[in-house]
């Protein structure tokens, strides 16, 4: 059992490292992990004096919004890129579960993007001289971990969905801005028409944001965090099922190209 766990961890770690090595040369990573959060922070908060509470909420919203873009463009594109490289079949028909391999790659992409987003956001925050209210730093760390887990699971799900459609790249672009507007991060969900408020409810990052807003106000409300975790598990489960269906269909239809 221990040996199996160790091997599983090693497989995920190797996949994570391979993804991160590849990300170093992708210009899109600079756009989503550096340019986008910096630009958003300057647009949203660059000319305003923010209270510590407002600063926490604003920076959290920008970081989570940037995380959504990063999830769609980096983790969500893992399998599409594999097809482009001609490595898809080897990755999903190896001796190990394709979900484990995809998990490692998606985690690699999410962590790499998250580090970039946090570092560039921190630089802007220092430049603009924001002061923060962080009454519960431990809970913020938990929120960050949930964000990474959620981005990984959502990335896996999107990667599978982008794989089964021929128009993955177009879907990637199409998913970004509606979520910017409807995701409840930059625009409060209450500001949306009532018939559209279910959209942000499906996005785990929106619930993490609600949790961070509450924490910055001094209260720890676990319900939004619980919803975020539940949604993350839902994404993960859907991704595993979707990948299995996609790989089985690929073997039946002959769409798994080795090169």
């Amino acid at each position: 059992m221990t040996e199996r766990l160790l091997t599983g961890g090693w497989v995920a770690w190797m996949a994570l490292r391979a993804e991160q090595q590849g990300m170093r040369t992708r210009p899109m990573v600079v756009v989503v992990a550096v340019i986008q959060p910096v630009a958003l922070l300057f647009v949203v908060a660059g000319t305003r004096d923010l209270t510590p509470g407002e600063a926490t909420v604003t920076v959290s919203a920008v970081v989570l919004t940037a995380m959504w873009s990063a999830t769609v463009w980096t983790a969500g594109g893992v399998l599409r890129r594999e097809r482009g490289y001609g490595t898809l079949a080897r990755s999903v028909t190896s001796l190990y579960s394709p979900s484990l391999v995809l998990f490692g790659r998606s985690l690699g992409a999410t962590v790499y993007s998250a580090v970039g987003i946090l570092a560039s956001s921190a630089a802007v925050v220092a430049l603009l001289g924001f002061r923060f209210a962080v009454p519960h730093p431990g809970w913020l760390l938990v929120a960050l971990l949930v964000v990474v887990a959620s981005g990984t699971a959502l990335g896996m799900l999107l990667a599978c969905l982008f794989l089964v459609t021929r128009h993955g790249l177009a879907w990637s672009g199409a998913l970004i801005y509606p979520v910017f507007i409807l995701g409840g991060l930059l625009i409060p969900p209450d500001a949306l028409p009532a018939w559209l408020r279910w959209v942000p409810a499906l996005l785990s990052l929106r619930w993490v944001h609600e949790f961070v807003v509450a924490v910055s106000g001094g209260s720890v409300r676990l319900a939004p965090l619980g919803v975020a975790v539940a949604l993350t598990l839902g994404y993960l489960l859907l991704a595993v099922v979707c990948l299995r269906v996609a790989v089985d269909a690929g073997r039946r239809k002959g769409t798994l190209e080795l090169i």
Partner: protein
Amino acid sequence: MGVPAVEVTGVGRVFGRGRHEVVALRDVTFEVAEGQILGVLGSNGAGKTTLTKILATLLEPTTGTARVFGHDVRRELRAVRRLTGVVFGGDRGFYGALSGRDNLRYFAMLAGVGRRTIRAKVDDALAGVGLAEAARRPVETYSKGMRQRLHIALGLVAEPRLLLLDEPTVGLDPVEAERLRTTIAALRRTGVSILLTSHYLLDIERLADRVLVVAQGRVMVDTPAAEFARSAGFAATVTLQGRGPLPARLDSYRMAVESVEDQGGVWTARLRVPDWGGEMFQQLSAALADADVLGVDVAPVRLEDVYALVMQRLAQGEPARTAGAAGTDRR
């Protein structure tokens, strides 16, 4: 006798449906004995790659069964993958930004190489294909030949018992191709079974124990390589050039005159001889005793000639030869 490395029985594969239906394989049956190299020949679209993909568990057969060392490719995926290495030719199949070593380490891990031995096995595999010095370079800087060698290293790194090679020498220069053939020949000595598809008949001629000719998704010929070469009906083409009258006895004995040309008193005759040895040499000498011979050239029959003849015969509707006991011949 042990379990065959590959056992394919009545395998068919259909792509698409209705008007778009394409039958890639029909009732394909053959075996590869352990330690044997089976050369699969066929023109583009004959079904060779489909067959390789089925054995590599990338594609399910529509009908029939395929087994690798007794394991069903449809149901026992892990067991088949553990025993099989796959090498597809081409430029793609790697992460361009990663080094050769990093690519190989990652794919070796996926192929089942354990974490304790992976470093040594990857270094050995890179050295084995002559890429040790270029191991740190990104794959996008590799030449076509180097990428192909990396593909070979990838196919071998997990020490498979069955190696599926699909057009392994495609695009390689003659030196690289020869190097690859030497590597494959060395593998035979280690007992690895190999299914080799290639357009280059030299690969098959040099390496294969048996030859399988696939056309329109069917196995048309399944025979030992030596017998396949003999199926042309002649062992060599002798080209004679001389002056004066054409020797009358030339068409006798067991020599078949293929063509005779006469240009300005110099004739050129091409003969197909059923074998090329001392007896045939004596017969030819006797036939040419009174002739004024200017030159003699002997070209042993090549697999390329045989393949062209076989395909010509098949096109003319000659029945296929699918030897029932095909898989039992071993070298």
